């Protein structure tokens, strides 16, 4: 008999969502959908507020990577105050923001890999849920040190954010046209040469060790890592002007599954010429796509996997070395293996740790020329590579300095279609021909979602944790089974 399965809530991700899976009379999966069931509407209630409030106000969307929204909005406001489109700031302004951003990348990636994803990999997808979590790692003699490293990497990143933004969460450092503080020599020395483990060199060596850990895991679990939820797609991200991995500023680039460039050297101020969003009735999250390919074929992935597919190289030595090994595995072609997102994420963590050290050694961070302003503009777009992927902030300001329009396209929204694809593939693999839902089946679906490190609150500009619901319906939409967690 045909069925519909609902997984609700999805766990160990940020926000609240559910999955529905439809099966036909033969018990084969015919449709899988990832629904985001929360809504907050930041785009609406920033309207009417003064534009300089945007970087502080909009970051309240999220408590995990608020720095991305803070910087995304600040970059848009740089355009508004006439400070150019991302590369017109003073060296102190830009480098302080970069330091803030890489501090965040380090802490968010550490949070995702060590706290949220690694329990699935290290303890097993089908391990008892009671121990399949970060506490399970801490209490395991094999993984205790690793879990502590994850916690300390997160702490180091958070303290970088505090030193640049004023607070670990929801700071005020980035202001239109620059930054409101520089880095003191004492702060610099603490991050560079602080007591172990909280110094730049330890972070680099731990990030390097995490890449090695994943590679070792890969060797032992090649089949799962390479084939779990693998599917071809387009990929989109910022890249530096020279094609380097750059998470703060650059041009838009998109490649197809074969690595052919679909977009290149695109100024993101013109993103609307290249990207559109589709609304579907069953979810609050929109579906962006490349306009030149249309909504059927134009969807793409963003995030660590996409970034390492679009960039030509990584501008720090150890991360570049890791990148070369990573690229060699697919013979230089785009990587479409879902679980390799974790590998890419760890290479980015290494890049972030190395970038932090480079920035700390730069005396521009102690500069006093922090803000630049020029001719006031009425419209500005800020783009940044958030930990989870490409983040657009677009604002229009009226003559009275009020925000008239805001449009945010966050990473999880870009990954909407890919997550739906991933769920469908895993659901087919796990549930075809089986009417009864088991806990490992549900977790396998979540593992596919988790690889994208989604932030569902950001995606709908909504509030909350992410519980998961799975429901099973028959072909007449009759509820067969439902699991809520």
């Amino acid at each position: 008999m045909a069925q519909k399965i609902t997984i609700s809530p999805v766990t160990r991700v940020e926000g609240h969502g559910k999955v529905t899976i439809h099966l036909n009379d033969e018990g084969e999966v015919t449709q899988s959908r990832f629904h985001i069931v929360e809504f907050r509407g930041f785009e609406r209630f920033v309207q009417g507020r003064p534009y300089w409030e945007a970087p502080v106000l909009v970051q309240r969307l999220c408590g995990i990577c608020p720095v991305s929204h803070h910087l995304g909005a600040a970059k848009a406001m740089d355009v508004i105050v006439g400070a150019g489109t991302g590369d017109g700031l003073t060296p102190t302004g830009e480098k302080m923001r970069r330091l803030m951003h890489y501090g965040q990348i380090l802490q968010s990636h550490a949070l995702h890999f060590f706290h949220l994803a690694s329990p699935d990999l290290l303890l097993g997808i089908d391990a008892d849920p009671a121990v399949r979590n970060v506490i399970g790692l801490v209490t395991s003699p094999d993984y205790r040190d690793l879990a502590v490293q994850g916690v300390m990497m997160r702490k180091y990143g958070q303290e970088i954010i505090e030193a640049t933004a004023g607070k670990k969460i929801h700071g005020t450092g980035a202001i239109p046209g620059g930054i409101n503080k520089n880095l003191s020599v004492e702060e610099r020395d603490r991050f560079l040469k602080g007591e172990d483990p909280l110094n730049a060199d330890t972070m680099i060596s731990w990030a390097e060790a995490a890449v090695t850990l994943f590679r070792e895991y890969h060797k032992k679990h090649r089949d799962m890592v390479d084939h779990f939820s693998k599917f071809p797609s387009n990929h989109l991200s910022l890249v530096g002007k020279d094609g380097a991995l750059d998470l703060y500023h650059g041009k838009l680039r998109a490649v197809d599954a074969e690595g052919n460039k679909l977009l290149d050297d695109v100024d993101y101020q013109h993103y609307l010429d290249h990207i559109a969003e589709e609304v579907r009735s069953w979810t609050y999250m929109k579906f962006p796509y490349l306009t030149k390919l249309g909504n059927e074929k134009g969807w793409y992935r963003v995030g660590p996997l996409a970034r390492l597919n679009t960039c030509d190289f990584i501008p720090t030595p150890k991360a570049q070395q890791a990148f070369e090994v990573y690229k060699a595995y697919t013979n230089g072609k785009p990587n479409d293996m879902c679980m390799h997102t974790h590998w890419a994420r760890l290479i980015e963590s290494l890049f972030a740790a190395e970038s932090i050290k480079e920035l700390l050694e730069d005396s521009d961070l102690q500069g006093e020329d922090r803000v630049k302003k020029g001719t006031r503009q009425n419209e500005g777009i800020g783009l940044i590579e958030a930990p989870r992927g490409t983040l657009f902030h677009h604002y229009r300001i009226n003559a009275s300095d009020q925000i008239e329009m805001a449009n945010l396209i966050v990473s999880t929204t870009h990954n909407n279609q890919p997550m739906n694809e991933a769920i469908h593939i895993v659901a087919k693999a796990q549930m075809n021909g089986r009417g009864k839902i088991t806990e490992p089946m549900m977790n396998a679906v979540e593992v596919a979602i988790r690889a994208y490190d989604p932030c569902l609150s950001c995606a709908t500009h909504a509030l909350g944790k992410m519980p998961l619901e799975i429901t099973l319906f028959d072909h007449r939409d009759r509820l067969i089974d439902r699991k809520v967690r």
Partner: protein
Amino acid sequence: MGKVSTFTIDGVKCMAGEGSYIVDAARQNNIYIPTLCDVQGVPPKGACRTCTVRVNGKLMTSCTSRVHDGMEIENNVPELNDLRKSIIEMLFVEGNHLCPTCEKSGNCELQALAYRYAITVPRYPFLFPRRNIDFTHPRIIKDHNRCILCKRCIRVIKDKDGKNIFAFLNRGFKTRIYVDPDLAENLTEELAQKAVDICPVGAIIKRGQGFETPIGRRKYDKHPIGSELEE
């Protein structure tokens, strides 16, 4: 030197010039009485009632009452502190005070008093009034969501002829501060900054500027309100 009055605050013997307002006399004796509308050197108004003390058994505002010989003043006692706390809570629920995104956060006297009195959730229901933001003046923005009608701007900001640039408009719950249109041009850059600085909350903010003081260096980041007298 003029005549000196001797009085007590919470049993502590104090002295101040005869005729001083209680709030000023307390300050001279390193005793803090909270206030949101009082400005040193400007005739008092008694608008906010936060400085209410009990004198010889009667409640009165310390910014408008003068000290006399032999006065027994109660200030930092549980009953009065709870009254003050309730006044601050009323100010919060009566407007739309969203501290996390307010430019004045960390420099705001209302917020600082809320911390002093450990306000977590107000005892009164939020009113969520619909109020606008006035963007009409080229130098300042008036966010009526945050205004507590203390009248500081009205009393302090005067043009070179001594005329009030700010005034109240409407009455009761609809009362708003506004800039006299005939005198709007007289609000110079210097006076605009003074209006921003004198506003105890974030109701008057400078156009095009925000969050320029980093967290950690704002007025109340490290020193709670009143601590300058109490330390």
